[in-house]
């Protein structure tokens, strides 16, 4: 048993428990912003620690726990998004009625759940990690205490999340029944085509489809994204989705590959196609920025599924690359939505009128983020989509790239719609919007990364490539 492979998770758990105790011990509710700073610094330190884990590629606890380059890459993605979410909620928590310190602690535990998922090499550990993440999100989504919409979102997420977990668990139990093992790489030895395997694969895909909000398992996401506190919406859209992809990739590439006889690539292809088409089309008429970003994130899951269809090193690499730049673009957009939403007390897109005059920095970041999500060159989103569609076109399959291209063009419409409001229209009142230092740091970093990776993607592409190779 090699406990050193658990070091980052242990540090994360210690950070969470320590800050929870600190929150309870410190009497002043107002001083709890300090907990947020401590959380940020702690997670930055853990992020640095994870970068020393590249190249280990070992398993422990009888292969139940794995630290390979893929897991490390995903953990860094979760930590980066958790750090930015915490930074952008430092001011936001003041508008929460109570429990400011606990808000940050919950973010840490949700991230820990994702990290467990990334390193889980067995179905039970995978499931417990996923539940740690999901249960924490139930609390986080309903954190706007006394706000009906937030409570409604929390209840909806609880019921639908529990149902999807139950369905996935049923599929996993069938896999165990067929193979007699829960360890993912050992599953493949015992599997041949059988009706029960097909049912198991469909049920597990339905469970993962819920987590990544692929259509038709997306029903929960718009309501919950709208009702949840905005930083949590960002966290759900970015990290929870990436965590779903992480376990889905590991399970389906290593545990139930297509060679076992169940051609899940056909199912993924269907999901990818309707997710790209429907997600983008429904995003067009939205008037609430959080709902618009919710549907946009559904559509983005469709693009990521195209990389899953390729099911080779290039495909997985493109998913990892796109997931990382998607984090920065989305965090940028949501950070602006947090500030504007808090200042104007409204999430309507029409209320973004004249943001370019009132607060040019926020308007610029929002524009860059949205254009990156739309995939306009020379921003990072363009390179990411190029990798995704090139991976599937290399296998001679052209239609996903075609749908993706057309749908990206359509998505430009609703992304640019927001930009039009911001730059063309005159503001309703001229008062400048105050932006705190933490938000400035978040939005500037996300914008710089989006711009730099657009023209110089090699370093991240190389990292994603190393991570993807660990699975094959």
């Amino acid at each position: 048993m090699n406990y050193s492979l658990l070091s980052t998770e242990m540090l994360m758990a210690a950070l969470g428990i320590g800050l929870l105790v600190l929150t309870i011990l410190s009497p002043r509710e107002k001083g709890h912003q300090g907990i947020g700073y401590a959380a940020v610094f702690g997670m930055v330190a853990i992020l640095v620690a994870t970068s020393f884990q590249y190249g280990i590629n070992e398993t422990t606890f009888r292969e139940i726990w794995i630290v390979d380059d893929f897991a490390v890459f995903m953990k860094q993605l979760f930590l980066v998004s958790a750090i930015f979410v915490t930074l952008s909620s430092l001011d936001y928590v003041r508008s929460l009625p109570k429990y400011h310190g606990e808000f940050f602690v919950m973010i840490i535990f949700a991230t820990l759940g994702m990290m467990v998922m990334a390193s889980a090499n067995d179905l039970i550990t995978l499931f417990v990690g996923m539940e740690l993440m999901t249960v924490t999100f139930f609390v986080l989504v309903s954190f706007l205490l006394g706000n009906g919409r937030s409570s409604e979102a929390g209840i909806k997420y609880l019921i639908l999340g529990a149902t999807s977990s139950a369905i996935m668990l049923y599929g996993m139990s069938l896999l165990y029944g067929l193979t007699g093992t829960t360890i993912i790489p050992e599953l493949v030895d015992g599997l041949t085509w059988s009706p029960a395997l097909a049912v198991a694969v469909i049920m597990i895909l339905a469970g993962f489809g819920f987590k990544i909000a692929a259509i038709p398992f997306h029903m929960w996401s718009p309501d919950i994204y709208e009702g949840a506190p905005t930083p949590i919406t960002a966290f759900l859209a970015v990290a929870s989705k990436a965590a779903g992809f992480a376990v889905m990739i590991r399970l389906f590439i290593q545990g139930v590959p297509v060679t076992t006889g169940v051609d899940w690539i056909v199912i993924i292809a269907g999901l990818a196609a309707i997710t790209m088409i429907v997600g983008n089309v429904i995003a067009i008429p939205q008037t609430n920025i959080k709902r618009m970003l919710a549907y946009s994130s559904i559509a983005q899951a469709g693009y990521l599924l195209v990389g899953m269809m390729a099911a080779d090193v290039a495909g997985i690499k493109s998913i990892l690359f796109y997931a990382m730049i998607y984090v920065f673009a989305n965090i940028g957009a949501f950070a602006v939505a947090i500030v504007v939403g808090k200042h104007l007390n409204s999430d309507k897109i029409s209320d973004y009128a004249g943001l370019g005059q009132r607060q040019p920095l926020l308007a610029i970041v929002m524009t860059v983020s949205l254009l990156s999500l739309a995939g306009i060159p020379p921003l990072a989103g363009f390179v990411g989509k190029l990798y995704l569609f090139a991976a599937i076109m290399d296998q001679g399959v052209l239609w996903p790239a075609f749908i993706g291209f057309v749908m990206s063009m359509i998505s430009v419409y609703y992304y640019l719609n927001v930009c039009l409001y911001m730059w063309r229209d005159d503001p309703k009142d001229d008062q400048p919007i105050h932006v705190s230092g933490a938000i400035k740091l978040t939005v500037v970093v996300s914008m710089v990364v989006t711009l730099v990776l657009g023209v110089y993607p090699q370093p991240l592409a190389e990292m994603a490539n190393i991570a993807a190779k660990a699975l094959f």
Partner: protein
Amino acid sequence: MNETVYVIAFYILAAIVLFSAIGVVVLKNIVHSALLLALTFVGVAGIYVLLNADYLAAVQVMVYAGAIAILIAFGVMLTRRPNMKESNPFNSSAVVGFVVAAGLFGTMAWAILTTTFPLGLTAPTDEISVRGVAKLLLEDYTVSFEAAALLLTVAMAGAIIIAKGAKKA
């Protein structure tokens, strides 16, 4: 002889589980539903005994039939309405629900019946006794065990946050 006893016991237990589960859904009084749910849990515990999983059966009785059923009873008591008669009404989607459930049952039954599962014919190992379970939890499944412990901590803190609400304590 021994074999027949097992088979008879299995069918009795299965009947208890199935019929009480149907009762949970169909009965109009939610207190009756809660009691039948406890009976379902006990029936499942009986099936665990037949599978030689004694410890699991004990846990099932204590946690589900004991703690969870009492929690449900408390939940019913604390939120009850004056008249319990129509407290568990059918909703408007009963027909759709029946069709979906029947379809799912048919698919699952077809899939499981037409698949040959690799049956482990070995004698029960000590993995099903208390000693075996403890060994598994504290050696191989340490990560899941600890993650579950953290999950409970978070769930408890979250429950307090949501239950206490925004009111000044």
